[in-house]
């Protein structure tokens, strides 16, 4: 395998029903830095139904160019259609590395591509770097429930593949009107090549929980004590315009739906402010919030590990502290 042929850094920008998944744009941020280190072009690969506007936007978010594949067969994700399209593109353009958002679809596509291309894939990365001397990507990811971090290389195969968690990187600045080439590739996958059929889509409308994109998150843990206990968490979230999160302990107790779960097995988040209420801060939870700009911990136990990862802390009963905070914040907002 001659590595000289393999150039450029690709970011797979996932779409569904002609809408972008935010992680695609997020990855253009580390993508830009890595491409500059590599002396390579940053290429957004956009596949979907009608998604040219997303390709344009990817360029405004920092990509040098975009490759666009459109077709009805890509309106919804299928392993077969997407992997055939990606394999065709990789064979033609030979990228050195591809970043894929670690959504369910991204984590479905990545391993299929790794097999099709006979190369290495690093799952669920939280850190990305480029070793210029060796010419390799350095993928950092948590393992053993977040207890251990591992740096992974793929030194002898190209392209190097990695899935990256949503919420780890923040969307880059949008430069309106920034121009770049959009190359349209006419790749079509016949219906009989697509072995899975979408029968119907069930949207859970109960409560939209968008933790990955939240600017402020107020999270409750075991210390919240009950389903009713979450009322005070919600109240604080309301005055702050925040999204409600929860630790695994609170979710397992059934106090709040799993969609709110933050941590290694839940969502990885990167808000400007994360307020952890009654959360001890087990390593699995800490791993999921490490991308936050500022972490505030409220806990009765001054020895709780959450204080090791927090920027500000207060020791005491959350049911005393939070109502006071709410009234103080209301005064500020007034």
């Amino acid at each position, binding site marked *: 395998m001659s590595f000289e042929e393999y150039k450029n850094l690709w970011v797979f920008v996932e779409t569904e029903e002609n809408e972008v998944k935010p992680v695609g744009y997020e990855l253009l941020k580390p993508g830009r830095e890595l491409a500059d280190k590599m002396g390579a072009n940053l290429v957004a690969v956009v596949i979907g139904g009608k998604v040219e506007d997303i390709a344009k936007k990817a360029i405004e978010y920092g990509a040098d160019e975009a490759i666009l594949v459109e077709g009805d067969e890509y309106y919804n994700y299928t*392993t077969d259609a997407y992997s055939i399209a990606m394999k065709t593109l990789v064979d033609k353009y030979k990228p050195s590395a591809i970043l894929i958002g670690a959504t369910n679809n991204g984590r479905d596509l990545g391993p299929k591509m790794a*097999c099709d291309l006979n190369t290495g894939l690093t799952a669920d990365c939280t850190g990305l770097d480029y070793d210029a001397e060796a010419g390799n990507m350095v993928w950092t990811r948590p393992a053993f429930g977040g207890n*251990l971090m591992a740096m992974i*290389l793929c030194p002898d195969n190209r392209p190097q593949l990695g899935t990256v968690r949503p919420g780890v990187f923040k969307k880059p600045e949008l430069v309106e009107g920034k121009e770049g080439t959009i190359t349209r590739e006419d790749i079509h996958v016949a219906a009989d090549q697509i*072995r*899975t059929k979408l029968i119907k*889509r*069930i949207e859970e409308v109960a409560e939209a929980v968008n933790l990955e994109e939240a600017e402020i998150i107020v999270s409750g843990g075991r210390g919240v004590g009950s389903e009713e206990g979450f009322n005070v968490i919600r109240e604080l979230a309301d005055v702050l315009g925040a999204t409600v999160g929860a630790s695994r302990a609170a979710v397992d107790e059934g106090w709040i739906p799993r969609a709110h779960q933050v941590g290694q097995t839940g969502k990885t988040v990167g808000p400007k402010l994360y307020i952890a209420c009654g959360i001890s801060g087990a390593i699995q939870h800490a791993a999921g919030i490490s991308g936050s700009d500022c972490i505030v911990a409220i806990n009765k136990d001054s020895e709780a590990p959450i204080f090791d990862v927090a920027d500000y802390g207060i020791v005491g009963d959350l049911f005393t502290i939070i109502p006071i905070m709410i009234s*103080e914040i209301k005064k500020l907002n007034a």
Partner: protein
Amino acid sequence: MRILVCVKQVPDTAEIKIDPVTNTLIRAGVPSIVNPFDACALEVAARIKDANPGTEITLLSMGPDQAKDALRECLAVGGDKAYLCSDRKFGGSDTLATSYILASAIQSIEEKDGKFDLILAGKQAIDGDTGQVGPEIAAHMGLAQVTYAAEVTVEGDDIIVKRESDKGYDMISVQKPAIVTVVKTEFDPRYPTIKSKMAAMRKEITVITSEDIPNIDLTRCGLKGSPTKVRKTFTPVKNKNCVIVDEGEVETSAVKLVEVLTEAKVL
């Protein structure tokens, strides 16, 4: 109907601690368990078997001899027979090499026992957390895959999967044979009975070595056959200096906290 369930024996990562002095994982005394997602996959298989009498569930694992314990546990809750891929030549395999070995083993089992209609696995193992081996087995075998299944039912030649999506669920149908990976299901895996445990103890677990897989390409197995390499491992750093707001009374501290956060322009 013939179902294969892939099972991994893993350390209970909830019990793992970090040695504060050496900063390494303390594995001593950490119990080995059946990967919880694989246990869910087995329960999905057992429910299909309940609904479709005559279904046979085969179990497959890869690992050292000790992994037989995990297979026995699974034999006691629905599994009919079990195979363990175990060979020093398989050690150090990454996901691509592991899936190649498992796919090769599955094909050699199929030659003896007949084709599988459905292959199930957990969405990921809790030690590695990659979620790649299932889909990679599918790709090696040329089978269709559906990942992140919360429910699986069989209707004639179709497998119907309720798949987790970003907004809820997608109902997906795929023709047999296919590979489906399973999330933590709404229902808990069933418990063994004393009788089923006794029966599981008496069952033979067939060990598959590289010599039992005639066409296996050993250059694709083990550390050498793995495209990814671990450069180093380290424990996550905790280097933040937490500012503890303490004004004596907790009420005063709470007021002060909002003040501090406002000054820091966090609020």
